[in-house]
């Protein structure tokens, strides 16, 4: 056997072995009640009123929980849909035909890899109590993560639902980065890079913003309360900035920028973008963690921002080029969706329109002007859309967040106080800036270290002939389209 094959064999054997160790004890611990709600106790002659009221209260709580859980499971599915096939199609259509499968495979591989890492240790590192920067190992192998809620995070749904919802975010975040090094990164190097990135960048960032005791957590003990409803800093800034670092480190594609490399199928990208828009309802409205009016508010804000983003980008294109393109319109919508992500559960509909419009214009400028001026090959504009859109969205969250939508800050007596700048709390903009800075620095430094390590170990870029031949054939032994067959 070659070294590579025996290495893969050892990895698989080790994985199976360690999984067996976890399956047996965990079975004993999480044998909780099966099904959402136990059958109501059989009514005997007539129970005393107090008992009956207690029974009814329990049933009401279970019904409410059932509604929340149904929505949260659907949201989890929607967010996964955003990666596969949403992002896979969106990115797949933008690359040249010879790289379409390799590009889609990168997203799919993350659906696989991150799930396994999350189950083993990822969820714990994000959401178990630990220090301000990283969670502890208490939830390793998902021990204790079962049907009972964790009241700190989401009191009305099983913690297992919360875990699987968060998993979908952990999947899509690294998938966004693949846009920066499209058409030239080795598949093996990508897998190694992403595994390390999930530990070194995503898990710490998610813990800091959303985990108990995280440095930036706005409600659970953070020293620098940063408002991030669904992941402007955790998902978009980390992936966008990491993408820029990757693009700069790996260098440009052969022939860029002189050789023409238009998208091989804007049709695929269009389908992907629409799936992203719809899936984003799960991403943002699902981050309410309940099925109540806050979810509705986030849903509406998300949709409005997408529309305004498309409008902004298309208007800018129409004015500059004389024609609004389909690719521009869908890119604008994505920009709006990115920017509203941190703000979605904190701002009103009109603010959402504003945020979307600003993002559409800013991201258009980043992609059509700034990228050309500086000459970096961020192939699918991961930094231009996610890095820039996430940054402006996180900052504008500090401006537009209001207690009228989400009374998230309370004083000592439990009364709601000002949230963002429009409410009168200018300090929040500064806190947002701090949180954004932490995200930028962690992503840039972490990514650079990981790139260097993986480069030294196995090399990052495919050889020239493989890049010319195309990654579908050179990395995966397949062709995307065999239309003559």
């Amino acid at each position, binding site marked *: 056997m070659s070294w590579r094959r025996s290495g893969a064999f050892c990895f698989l054997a080790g994985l199976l072995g360690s999984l067996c160790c976890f399956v047996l004890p965990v079975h004993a611990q999480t044998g909780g009640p099966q099904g959402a709600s136990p059958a109501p106790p059989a009514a005997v002659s007539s129970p005393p009123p107090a008992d009956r009221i207690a029974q009814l209260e329990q049933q009401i709580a279970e019904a409410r929980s059932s509604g929340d859980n149904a929505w949260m499971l659907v949201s989890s599915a929607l967010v996964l849909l955003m990666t596969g096939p949403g992002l896979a199609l969106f990115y797949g259509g933008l690359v040249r035909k010879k790289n379409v499968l390799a590009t889609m495979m990168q997203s799919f591989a993350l659906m696989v890899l991150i799930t396994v890492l999350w189950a083993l240790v990822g969820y714990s590192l994000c959401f178990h109590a630990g220090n301000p920067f990283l969670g502890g190992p208490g939830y390793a192998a998902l021990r204790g993560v079962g049907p009972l809620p964790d009241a700190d995070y989401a009191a009305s749904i099983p913690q297992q639902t919360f875990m699987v919802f968060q998993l979908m975010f952990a999947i899509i975040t690294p998938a966004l980065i693949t846009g920066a090094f499209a058409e030239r990164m080795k598949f093996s190097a990508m897998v190694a890079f992403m595994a390390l990135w999930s530990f070194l960048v995503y898990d710490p960032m998610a813990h800091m913003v959303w985990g108990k005791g995280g440095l930036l957590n706005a409600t659970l003990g953070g020293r620098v309360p940063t408002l991030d409803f669904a992941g402007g800093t955790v998902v978009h800034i980390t992936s966008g900035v990491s993408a820029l670092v990757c693009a700069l480190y790996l260098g440009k594609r052969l022939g860029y920028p002189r050789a023409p490399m*238009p*998208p091989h199928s804007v049709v695929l990208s269009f389908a992907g973008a629409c799936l992203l828009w719809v899936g984003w309802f799960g991403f943002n409205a699902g981050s309410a963690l309940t099925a109540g009016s806050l979810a509705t508010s986030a849903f509406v804000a998300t949709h409005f921002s997408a529309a305004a983003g498309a409008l902004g980008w298309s208007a800018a*294109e129409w004015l500059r*080029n004389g024609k609004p393109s389909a690719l521009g319109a869908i890119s604008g919508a994505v920009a709006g969706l990115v920017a509203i992500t941190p703000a979605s559960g904190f701002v009103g509909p009109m603010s959402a329109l504003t945020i979307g419009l600003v993002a559409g214009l800013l991201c258009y400028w980043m992609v059509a002007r700034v990228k050309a001026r500086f000459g970096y090959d961020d192939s699918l*504009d991961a930094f231009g859309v996610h890095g820039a859109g996430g940054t402006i969205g996180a900052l504008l969250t500090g401006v537009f967040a209001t207690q009228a939508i989400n009374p998230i800050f309370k004083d000592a007596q439990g009364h709601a106080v000002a949230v963002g700048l429009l409410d009168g709390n200018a300090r929040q903009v500064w806190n947002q800036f701090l949180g954004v800075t932490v995200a930028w620095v962690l992503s840039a430094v972490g990514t650079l270290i990981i790139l260097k390590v993986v480069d030294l170990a196995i090399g990052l870029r495919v050889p020239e002939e493989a890049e010319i031949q195309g990654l579908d054939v050179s990395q995966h032994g397949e062709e995307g389209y065999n239309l003559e067959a």
Partner: protein
Amino acid sequence: MKKVEAIIQPSRFELVKTALAEIGVEGMTVTDVRGHGRQKGHTEVYRGREYTVDLLPKIKIEMVLPDHLVDSAVQTILKAAKTGKIGDGKVFLSNVDEAIRIRNEDRGDNAL
């Protein structure tokens, strides 16, 4: 026998095919091609980057015909394919040494 090769606008293809069938032309090979003579292309813009597209889609029809059909076939094609604008295409004629039907190995005009 002669080979008649015609490169025409895709939008005229159905008319040409029908007209040729009417004069008794029974076999042809059709390919999608791209090319240009004097016709100018256009520019496309993707995310702020401009691409010049100067190879335009055309249809190529190839037929091998017995000598007595060649003139009427050429006239038919010219009439059906012409729009009067630049980009209408061209017809090329060349001599063919031999034609053989694969099924029964007929040769010459019998194979056409």
